[in-house]
């Protein structure tokens, strides 16, 4: 069971996601009829390039974990397609596709909750060896691989291999989850808030480890987090989600230095300053993100956006290309949109907290 070789060449995206949709019906009433629909993921498109780390940011409920579960095919999308290294996922080989079983070998996931995702009754080396064994590795080889991986994540096999999850700290458990995710030699690892439950001192250890493992095993990451500093630290490109949609995507430098979408600007500006001399007086946004059950028409950010105009309610903005792979979905970015500031995205006041404030 060796790593599957690179097929389409380095320029072909490792994963191309098109028109991904997942709606959850909310059932209620006596007959359990569908009362409303949660538009958790709505027409999401992006590529994951070979060898990169793609960061996904956005607030609670914007659809990050649902996107991750769809990428892992832990559930079926309502619409959309996924092409993995040139092959359509979930279609049989005769039709030129990649079966789910083959796909799942190459894509693995690490969850936030380090405890819930480990079997409490198995010593950790067994947990790590489990999947390789299922996929046909001999017991002895699977255990050897588990021990190699324990060493790779910085846990000496001699003292850790036979421990149970409850005998480990949170940071150690998260290392086990990472080791387990690597056991099938995947190409793509989806990390859903992998450090959010960890203390800062431990978070740094795990982030360093992720950087090392990526180089050592030639991995590609999708890294989901609500910590904007961590995403900036680890990502090559960043995708910003709001209420189930992609509002902006681009190289990490472009997103953090020249954020285009008013939401991205506000989100970045909401970070505590780390400098008591730079305290702000006004929050960049008021109110909470709305519920994804009945998202606003047109631009979903319009109810909180200081620049919203009629056109923002009337029509959904197109994805505008700002160059260099930086795209943004805002009427101000498209010259023809009809917004009074159309084409003047970067002329609106800079993303400063006291400027972005909207009256309550």
């Amino acid at each position, binding site marked *: 069971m060796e790593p599957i070789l690179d097929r389409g060449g380095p320029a072909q995206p490792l994963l191309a996601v098109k028109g991904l949709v997942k709606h959850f019906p909310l059932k209620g009433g006596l007959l359990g009829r569908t009362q409303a629909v949660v538009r958790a993921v709505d027409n999401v498109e992006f590529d994951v390039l070979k060898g990169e780390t793609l960061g996904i940011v956005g607030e609670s409920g914007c659809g990050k974990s649902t996107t991750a579960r769809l990428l892992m095919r832990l559930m079926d999308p309502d619409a959309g397609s996924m092409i993995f290294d040139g092959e359509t996922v979930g279609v049989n080989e005769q039709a030129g596709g990649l079966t789910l079983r083959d796909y799942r070998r190459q894509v693995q996931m690490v969850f936030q909750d380090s405890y819930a995702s480990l079997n409490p009754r198995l010593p950790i080396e067994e947990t790590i060896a489990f999947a390789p064994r299922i996929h046909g590795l001999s017991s002895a080889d699977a255990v050897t691989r588990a021990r190699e991986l324990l060493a790779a994540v910085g846990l000496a096999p001699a003292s850790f291999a036979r421990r149970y999850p409850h005998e480990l700290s949170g940071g150690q458990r998260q290392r086990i989850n990472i080791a387990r995710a690597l056991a099938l030699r995947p190409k793509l690892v989806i990390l859903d808030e992998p450090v959010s439950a960890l203390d800062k*001192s431990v978070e740094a250890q795990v982030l360093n480890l992720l950087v090392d493992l990526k180089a050592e095993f030639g991995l590609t990451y999708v890294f989901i987090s609500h910590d904007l500093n961590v995403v900036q630290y680890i990502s090559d490109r960043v995708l910003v989600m709001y209420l189930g949609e992609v509002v902006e995507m681009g190289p990490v430098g472009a997103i953090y230095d020249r954020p285009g979408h008013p939401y991205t600007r506000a989100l970045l500006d909401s970070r505590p300053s780390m400098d008591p001399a730079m305290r702000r007086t006004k929050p960049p946004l008021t109110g909470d993100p709305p519920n994804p059950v009945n998202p606003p028409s047109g631009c979903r950010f319009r109810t909180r956006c200081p620049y919203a105009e009629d056109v923002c309610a009337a029509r959904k903005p197109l994805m505008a290309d700002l160059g260099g792979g930086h795209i943004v979905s805002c009427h101000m970015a498209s010259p023809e949109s009809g917004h009074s500031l159309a084409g003047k995205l970067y002329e609106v006041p800079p993303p400063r907290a006291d400027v972005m404030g909207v009256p309550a």
Partner: protein
Amino acid sequence: MSAVLKPPSPTAEVQPLVKLRDLSVTFATRDRTVHAVNGIDLDLAPGEVLCILGESGSGKSVTLRALMKLLPKFARVSGSIEVGGRDVTKMSERQLSNFRGTEVAMIFQEPMTALDPVFTIGRQIAETVQRHEGLSRSAATARALELLELVQIPSAKRRLDAYPHELSGGLRQRAMIAVALACRPKLLLADEPTTALDATVQIQVLLLLRELQERLGMGVIFVTHDLGVAGEIADRVAVMYAGRVVEEGPVAGLMAGPLHPYTQGLLGATVHAGMRGQRLTTIPGAPPTLDVVPTVCAFAPRCSFVHDECLAGVPVLRSPTPGRAARCVLVPDR
């Protein structure tokens, strides 16, 4: 805490709002013993905001709960706890129930632990005011409305009739703050109240708390594990490690030049903006389990500066400059 830690004040000494001396808390059950807090001295001046910073299990929440005498009966508490000049450890149940609410109030990470799901927000605030201040029903309702406006809940009048579950996360947090402030406490204890909130909502609630604190002149003890939050709201910071305060000082000085190797490690390990491409500094290992009280520097096993003196006993608090102090033998004492 020694007199050196008091900020030099030209006028007469202000009576501290909170005065903890040698506070220790131990949880002993049949299976195990946890020495959660191991001798804390802390002062809080009226109208001051102190952030308690520290990693999981360092004793932050236990310290806050001890201040309100909210710990379970089996917890062994020693040392003295004074709030507004009164000894909390000696209060009767009746005195306590009056004390909680009128003098001290607490807010939490999860607002549903503080809000009652079966009563409307307006009712909960009004009840609190009526109970403690004996106001009439209509006066209490008027106060409830005032409070919802104070915490900047939009359409406050309509929200009086809302049940907690009908509010979004950020509004629920504001409602909890309104309940806590109902009787104008002099001291607000906040246990990670913004940790679960989204970035754009967290900054709103932080700014709200700071504004309310200034307007009402409250003392606040704010527990967090997030340095950025402390930078946004604190006057002073106390860093806890293994149940002790290992460093304290004014927020700007502490963040610009931490004294204790643990605080230095924490600052180095926190991912700041623009650190891309740099190797993160880490603190190796993990905090002690606290089944016994540490008798040497509890940070020693993880400290890269450790030497013999560190293992000779628990380092005392040393103060190199007025207002600053750390429990590390490397810190010069004036």
